[in-house]
């Protein structure tokens, strides 16, 4: 039973990595789009791309938090009491990002838009970075089962920093691919070209970081490394192949399949990581089974997840399809 709930948690994390990730990445491109004039066009596309959907995308985070604290309360307490600093930073990032975006949208004068746009963009980079350091800390086994691990050294190791940077890079990659497709969809060829170059760049950087990651995990997170080259290997292969295929297809001007492949690349790596650290929730200190809540709580969590699949999934599909068909324009 606890394994099923852990799978639900992993599913939630994957969906957050994909939808939330693309959202954060969009902010990265907003940040790097240059001055008000030069950046106007890409920013308009960015605005248009995420305005109606960012809040829904973001609920996956809440979902993960809630499943974690209800299904695996000990793990939640251990993570929260050890990784206080980066989690706090991520929370601040979320506040700044969401409110910055909402304010920028309704403000008219340039100075205000600039300010809130900058806040939104900086926070979009900072938040995934700190979330990455949290994941890195867990993966490298720095969270003790009963919590209260070291406040600083737990998340400032090489693994944490690398995973943090990698989160930012893969968010940027995902977002750029999405934006290319969006631009093509709106027949804005030059914008498509603009983001194509960036998707390529981000893809290459992400790939390079992944290679570096192999060595870092080998040295500092041996358990997960071993898992990745064992049970996790199929996922890793899928991720590499689809990440590369997405770039190739994109460069050949394809409209279909590109997004799906990019999503697959990110999703596979998250799933692979989860599989690799099984049966541990916090590698080498706390297993899924040991952290699990009593039976009835787990059953209820699964029921709620089932309801989410039945109610939220169609609603989300409706939202995305209305958005794709440009029916949600002001």
């Amino acid at each position: 039973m606890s394994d099923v709930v852990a799978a639900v948690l992993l599913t939630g994390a994957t969906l957050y990595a994909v939808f939330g990730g693309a959202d954060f990445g969009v902010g990265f491109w907003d940040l790097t789009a240059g001055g008000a004039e030069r950046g106007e066009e890409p920013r308009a596309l960015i605005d248009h791309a995420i305005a109606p959907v960012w809040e829904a995308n973001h609920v996956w985070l809440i979902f993960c938090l809630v499943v974690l604290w209800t299904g695996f309360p000990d793990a939640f307490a251990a993570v929260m009491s050890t990784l206080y600093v980066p989690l706090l930073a991520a929370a601040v990032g979320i506040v700044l990002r969401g409110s910055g975006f909402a304010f920028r949208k309704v403000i008219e004068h340039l100075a205000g838009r600039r300010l809130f746009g900058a806040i939104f963009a900086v926070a979009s980079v900072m938040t995934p970075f700190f979330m990455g350091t949290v994941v890195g800390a867990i993966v490298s086994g720095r969270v003790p089962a009963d919590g209260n691990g070291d406040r600083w050294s737990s998340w400032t190791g090489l693994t944490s920093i690398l995973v943090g940077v990698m989160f930012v890079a893969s968010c940027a990659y995902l977002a750029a691919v999405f934006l290319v497709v969006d631009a093509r969809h709106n027949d804005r060829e030059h914008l498509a070209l603009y983001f194509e170059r960036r998707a390529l760049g981000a893809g290459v950087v992400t790939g390079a970081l992944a290679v570096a990651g192999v060595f870092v995990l080998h040295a500092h997170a041996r358990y997960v490394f071993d898992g990745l080259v064992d049970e996790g290997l199929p996922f890793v292969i899928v991720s590499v192949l689809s990440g590369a295929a997405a770039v190739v297809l994109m460069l050949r001007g394809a409209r279909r399949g590109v997004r799906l492949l990019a999503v697959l690349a990110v999703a596979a790596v998250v799933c692979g990581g989860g599989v690799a650290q099984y049966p541990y929730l916090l590698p080498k200190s706390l297993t899924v089974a040991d952290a699990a809540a009593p039976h009835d709580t787990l059953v209820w969590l699964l029921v709620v997840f089932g309801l989410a699949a039945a109610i939220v999934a169609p609603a989300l599909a409706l939202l995305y399809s209305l958005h794709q068909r440009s029916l949600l324009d002001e």
Partner: protein
Amino acid sequence: MRALSLLAASDLLPAREQMAFTLGFHIVLSCLGIALPAITLIANWRGIRGDDDALKLARRWSKVMAVLFAVGAVTGTVLSFELGLLWPRLMGRFGDVFGIGFAIEGLFFFTEAIFIAIYIYGWERLSPRAHFWTGVPIVIAGIGGALSVVAANSWMNQPAGFTLDRAGHVVDVRPVEVLFNGATPYEVPHMILAAYMVAGFLLASVYAVGMLRGRRDRYHRIGFVIPFTVAAIATPVQLFVGDTAARAIAEDQPAKFAAMEYVTETGANQPEYIGGFYDDGDVKAGIKIPDLDSILVGFSSGKIVTGLDQIPDDEQPPAPTLLHLSFDTMVGIGTALLLLGVWFAVVWWRRRELPRTVWFLRAAAVAGVAAIAALECGWVVTEVGRQPWIVHGYLRTEDAVTTAGGIWWTLAGTLLLYTALGVTTVVVLRGMARRWREEEIPEEDIPYGPQ
């Protein structure tokens, strides 16, 4: 171990302040998130029936909703982090029990976030009726979300539905009993009604101010009447529910009740105090009405009410004066708002128009802020009154707090960030209103219609 508890002691005060402040902030936005969609839909419905003013209002309110919803969502996310960051030992021990409420809440927030996006962005291209119906799930999700999250809070006040082993670990959870614990039946409706009161009076007060400044056109009148009516209908029900809540608390959380009502010694013929300060067993400077407290609790002056003398020293709620004055303020404001609603209803019934005197508008202009004050006071009664417990009878707040250290810094940062956030929200909303007044945007003249 000793070092640990010393650390915790230094974190306790700032952690409580931080929790209180961020919750007190979020709750205002929650109220608007719960009730504004319903009020907007009423205007939307009238708009579909051909009332252009109402339609314009609905469109504008939905734009306001977009901003408020974003701020509500991010401050709510902070709360989820804080439950773990500030109270890891609460979540570690009882997360698997009362977490279920939050899990269900997540479901509703999803629905809310999805349909609010469709509604806000769907004005232009969806057909008017389809668009209206996309608003309905928001209303339902708002109520459902409030239900599940307040059920979690009720559980902290009256924990139920779990079994502990000898070592104090939760070994068995009965989710239905958790969700429908003893405090749920009054806390949940009380909160949802509060949301409708806050949103209704607050929105109405915006137009009351507009009318006081001489903008007495039909647009402003409708903008006032729709939300005001909603709030005025909720008020009497709210007072009834609140009264029930108070009686239930006298039964189930006697320490809280004794402190908030200044019941010093157990016994019959308890007097009711209005105002007054508590000073170590004495009440100073309040109006004392003999027997009334016993009558309110048990419908008879012979009703025996538990007093603070029966509560062990280390389980006494802090600051009875704060609790009592908060309670009185909530009840006082509730009563005043009831009278305001009655005034409106009588005049409307006789003449089909607003009361003519400027005093009515002046009162209505402060009603919104007053409703928020009542809301915050109510939460102070609930949360401070539960102290020293975080889970009533099971876990003391000092045993739940984090030992991370440095919470004063976090608190200071939070105060700064949230002040900036609150001020900006108000400035941005006022900017929108000013723009709407100055330039009637042409697109708004064409009310509706797919292109």
